[in-house]
């Protein structure tokens, strides 16, 4: 037959632009390619924004209503009924800072963890660096976070104007972008590890929402670290989000306990999770269509 290879196969000396092979190495992350698709990432961000609140009456106001309601509920239940301490801060501000900061991490994790399952149809039809999807989620969540954090700052100014003693810590405020990136990294790392595993085991999807909620109770969202009995503090401090939330409060509200060692721990943790996540993601993206 004409199609049979003619042996020996004559290899011409040619340069190829692309070689499609069974498996790339674990470390071949192709981040340069992700950069070339930056327009796509931005368009995904735009798509998510435009489409999310289409045909809703309140539109983007929902960005504010969600954290506001959560804060009110937390203030009522944990502050007034359970009477948890808040490091001497107004309860409302304490819970709002915790909620807004935590929800950025939680949303990043929840949404990126569905990357493969939610985009199976798209991924099955066309190639682009799959990392573009979780990255776009990080960015659109960051915009949400900025809006919500802006609301928090307005409330803070209101409280200050009312005469409440609050001492923001300026050097730490300047450091806060690093904290945001750390949260993004943690959310991305955990998220893409989970999304890679859910291509085979859908069971994990149910665990994620539950797990994230559990993790919230192991972070100083509804209580300050200082209120935790010493012998349980290690559990809270093992959570890489703990030092980030505490540092945020310390920066903008002037209370809380921040140790450089803990921040360094969170930072290292983030690097490890993100690196592991990218390697697994890179591995899975090449074959997930066969198992999803």
């Amino acid at each position: 037959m004409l199609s049979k290879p003619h042996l020996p196969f004559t290899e011409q000396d040619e340069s190829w632009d692309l070689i499609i092979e069974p498996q790339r190495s674990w470390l071949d992350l192709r981040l340069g390619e992700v950069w070339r698709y930056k327009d796509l990432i931005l368009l995904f961000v735009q798509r998510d924004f435009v489409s999310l609140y289409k045909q809703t009456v309140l539109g983007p106001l929902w960005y504010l209503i969600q954290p506001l309601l959560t804060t009110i509920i937390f203030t009522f239940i944990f502050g007034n009924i359970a009477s948890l301490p808040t490091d001497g801060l107004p309860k409302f501000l304490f819970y709002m800072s915790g909620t807004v900061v935590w929800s950025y991490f939680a949303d990043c994790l929840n949404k990126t963890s569905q990357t493969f399952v939610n985009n199976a149809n798209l991924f099955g039809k066309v190639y682009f660096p799959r990392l573009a999807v979780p990255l776009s989620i990080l960015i659109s969540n960051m915009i949400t976070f900025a809006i919500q954090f802006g609301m928090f700052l307005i409330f803070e100014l209101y409280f200050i104007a009312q005469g409440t003693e609050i001492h923001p810590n300026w050097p730490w405020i300047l450091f806060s972008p690093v904290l945001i990136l750390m949260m993004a990294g943690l959310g991305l790392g955990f998220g893409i590890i989970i999304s890679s595993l859910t291509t085979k085991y859908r069971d994990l999807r149910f665990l994620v929402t539950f797990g994230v909620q559990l993790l919230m109770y192991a972070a100083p969202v509804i209580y300050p670290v200082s209120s935790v009995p010493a012998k349980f503090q290690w559990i809270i401090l093992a959570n890489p989000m703990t030092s980030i939330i505490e540092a945020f409060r310390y920066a903008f509200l002037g209370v809380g306990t921040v140790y450089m060692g803990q921040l360094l721990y969170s930072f290292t943790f983030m690097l490890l999770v993100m690196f592991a996540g990218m390697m697994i993601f890179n591995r899975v993206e090449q074959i997930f269509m066969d198992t999803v």
Partner: protein
Amino acid sequence: MTTVISVENLSKSYRLGQIGSGTFAHDLNVWWAKVRGRPNPLQRIGAADHHRYDDGEFWALKDLTFKVNQGEVLGIIGRNGAGKSTLLKILSRVTAPTSGKVKVKGRIASLLEVGTGFHPDLTGRENTYLNGAILGMNRKEVDRKFDEIVYFSEVEKFIDTPVKRYSSGMYVRLGFAVAAHLEPEILVVDEVLAVGDVEFQKKCLGKMGDVAKEGRTVLFVSHNMGAIASLCSKGIWLEGGRIKIYSKIQETISSYLDIADTRNAVNNPVDVSDVTRKRGSGEIRVTKVGLLNINEKWEQHFSMEDDFLIRIEIENFLNIMREVNCWFSIATPDGTVLGTGIQYDNSKRGVSVKGLSTVILDVTCKEIPFVPGVYFLNVGVLGKQKEILDWCEMVLSFEITDLLKNGSYFDNRVGKMILRSTWHVVDKKI
């Protein structure tokens, strides 16, 4: 001619039991069955083409090797499940091969679906940019071609309307328009032309023809033989995950259709009395031809080195007795004759046919030496002075399968024939 795509020993297997096993519980189930030595409970059963299943693995593609030159428009045809989509998916980098590799020169873009990633809530304009980016264009490129895309899609008036308000035709037109204005060196297109109205299909075909004329390479999968024939210069016929034929498009299509026919309707034996001939006086003609196995059953699939029978009916249209010699030859799908057998090879005298009557001849062909593939049978009649009386080409096709008589499979070796050989170690000098 530079080679822009080189596919080398490409294989893709799917592990059975992993397809469709989406939960941990299923995997546990499979594992537990394995531990107890039971068969995999999720394994598909009743698979017809057994050679693709071995050890719980299904080979969607097996050892594909071919090259595509720059500017060629290659049509890929085959039945459902032949591996066409898997091949496209690998070329589009949607999934990775199991072994082997594909080398590509230049930018490759694939169009497995129209309007991939369209979001119903976004406007036509927004979706154009999004879809363009998904297909690999950056914002500037879309900017530059935006007017052209809109013009081609004929949805100017609705470009700022959410696409969920579009009719399905408009949706498809916009989707194709974006893809058509990609400028890759290599374009991989799946059955996208099956959508849209006839008018638009023509437009799409025209556009793809243009793309090809610009010297770009196109790989095109379709069941629409008309479209394939008009667009493509070469064709690959995939069958059971392997390449059956890689040849000029007409040859690939005609043999594909021929086999497809014989699969569905039995035309063995075949009546060739009305088939037009290029040569021969026609006073005496072959009217019917059939292929049989050694048990005298009609058969078009043989193993290598099988014996087979050709049964030929010849009819004398004149009212005089004639002595004639019949012949047959075997050709490849592109018409190359591999060998001929003539009646006078083993007997001096031919066969006498009385006026206005028919004679039926059986020819036994011993141990077919050809490698697996599809072959065609030519038959004809020679007169006493070896003048051509009838010459009937490609009357029947038959297949030599790669399943050998001893139950093993044929290796992919070079050439069309097996040279029968015996081998000894000797104590002599050269």
